[in-house]
């Protein structure tokens, strides 16, 4: 920073179409070149960690929806797995595979949105509208499985509230058949497009070493050349039954992040296909009567079931004392849940390790020296989700 120069201060956000969420960047500009940047966040802070300390375990799932709302099922199921870890509940293979199907579908939508938005910010609106139709199809699958679309509140501790219906399975098959064509067309539009490559190669780069130091995880870290993926390193939900490739980039720039996500969509498609083909027979939940709501018909007709229903919803159940840290590979990085239980009806402390909150710190370092239009592309390629950023 040169104090004698007449720099321009520019507010990018809090409500700017290019921030894709409510957060602010105060940029110091020399002409069009970025000299410095400072982020202001917290505009949609909703105190989830405080609320979680006052809610029974059953009522916390809807809070997790609203972290990374582009891939809510991953948050929901990650939370259920955390509680299962605390309780020592072991889920069946069918539950695990069903979870994999939904989490990978969520990853596909998350990546589709992020990648198509990179296209939008570089001037190609067509691809965005085109792949959003596919996202809509995944939301229809969510709707079949859980009844909701965006904030899904999906699954239960121990499994799912209901089995995949025939319609859900049919919709998943249709999606698997249709998406490859769409993806090919989407890639034809951008992947080797001279304009897109010129706009993204070398833009907002970060080295693998700096990325690790900044706590990067997920596609952003892998684009910088570090092959860390929670699904492989600490497999949960039977991910070790499947074979898939972890794509890595080299430069850690916007183009690499785009390519890594694009390849991950293909890998996720294969995972969904394999999990669906090998879906074992059996029950869609394991037997944990203290945490799994009894069937609704019984609640209306049997005393015992009504009591359990009440106890679970109100949190009048025994929870062991202990602390666990569980992390899953979220849409944009390692989503962790640090849970301390003192045996009470609510968690004593629940901390969300939100990947977006941690890696967004690196933004000023990544855009410094670049031009304003590149800063916008860098931000969209980092996949910062406001809900997760502010918790």
């Amino acid at each position: 920073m040169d104090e004698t120069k007449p720099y321009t201060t520019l507010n990018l956000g809090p409500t700017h179409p290019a921030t894709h969420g409510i957060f602010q960047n105060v940029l110091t500009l020399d002409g069009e070149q970025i000299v410095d940047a400072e982020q202001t966040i917290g505009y949609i802070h909703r105190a989830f960690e405080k609320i979680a300390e006052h809610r029974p375990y059953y009522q916390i799932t809807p809070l997790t929806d609203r972290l990374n709302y582009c891939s809510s099922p991953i948050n929901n199921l990650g939370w259920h797995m955390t509680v299962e870890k605390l309780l020592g509940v072991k889920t069946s293979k069918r539950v695990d595979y069903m979870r994999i199907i939904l989490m990978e579908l969520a990853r596909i939508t998350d990546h589709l949105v992020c990648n198509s938005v990179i296209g939008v910010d570089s001037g190609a609106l067509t691809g965005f509208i085109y792949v959003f139709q596919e996202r809509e199809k995944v939301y229809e699958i969510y709707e079949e499985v859980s009844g909701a679309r965006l904030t899904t509140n999906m699954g239960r501790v121990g499994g799912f509230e209901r089995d995949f219906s025939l319609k859900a399975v049919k919709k998943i098959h249709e999606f698997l058949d249709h998406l490859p064509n769409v993806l090919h067309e989407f890639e034809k539009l951008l992947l080797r497009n001279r304009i897109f490559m010129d706009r993204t190669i070398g833009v907002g780069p970060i080295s693998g070493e700096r990325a690790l130091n900044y706590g990067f995880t997920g596609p952003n870290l892998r684009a910088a050349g570090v092959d860390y993926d929670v699904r492989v390193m600490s497999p949960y939900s039977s991910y070790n039954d499947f074979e898939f490739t972890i794509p890595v980039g080299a430069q850690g720039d916007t183009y690499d992040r785009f390519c890594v996500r694009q390849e991950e969509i293909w890998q996720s498609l294969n995972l969904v296909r394999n999990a669906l083909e090998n879906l074992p027979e059996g029950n869609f939940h394991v037997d944990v009567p203290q945490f799994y709501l009894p069937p609704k018909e019984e609640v209306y007709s049997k005393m015992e079931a009504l009591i359990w229903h009440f106890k679970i919803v109100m949190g009048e159940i025994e929870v062991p004392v202990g602390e666990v840290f569980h992390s899953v590979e979220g849409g944009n990085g390692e989503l962790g849940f640090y849970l301390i239980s003192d045996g009470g009806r609510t968690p004593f402390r629940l901390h969300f390790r939100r990947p977006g909150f941690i890696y967004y710190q690196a933004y000023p370092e990544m855009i410094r020296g670049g031009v304003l239009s590149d800063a916008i592309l860098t931000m969209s390629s980092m996949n910062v989700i406001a809900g997760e950023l502010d918790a």
Partner: protein
Amino acid sequence: MENSFIIDKLYKAFGQDILRMDTTSDILSFTVASPVIHEVIQFLKEDENMNFIFLTDLCGVHYPDRGLPLGVVYHLHNLRENKRLRIKTFITLNHPKVATVADLFSSANWMERETYDFYGIIFECHPNLKRILNVEYMDFFPMRKEYPLEDPTREDKDDRYFGR
């Protein structure tokens, strides 16, 4: 990487400053005295046998009934050996100060600001210790246990019977 190896190395380097060890949790955890927290984290990060180069998580916790009520919990990860480690340190309410680790991990910067914001734990030598998610003029630390979730003077709302 075996637990016993880490335990040996850590006890050799910081014998009397390790107050508690827990091998029964999901992750091997240590409670260390607050004055040495920076040295412990630095040792774990930079020692060539330890190599915990990744700070997964940093957060605060408040146990109002304990002698040292405020705590900071660090989750470290050795990516090469895929080993996780939990380090805790506890401090008093009157003197809530620990050394920052933002010089070791750039990622700690905002996580420490968040911990300060919610628990009022002061990270000494932090480059920019100010509130991050809450408004700057807030004069209390909302995640401490004594602060109620909702305004207790409200009469139009009685949540006692709704699992809260």
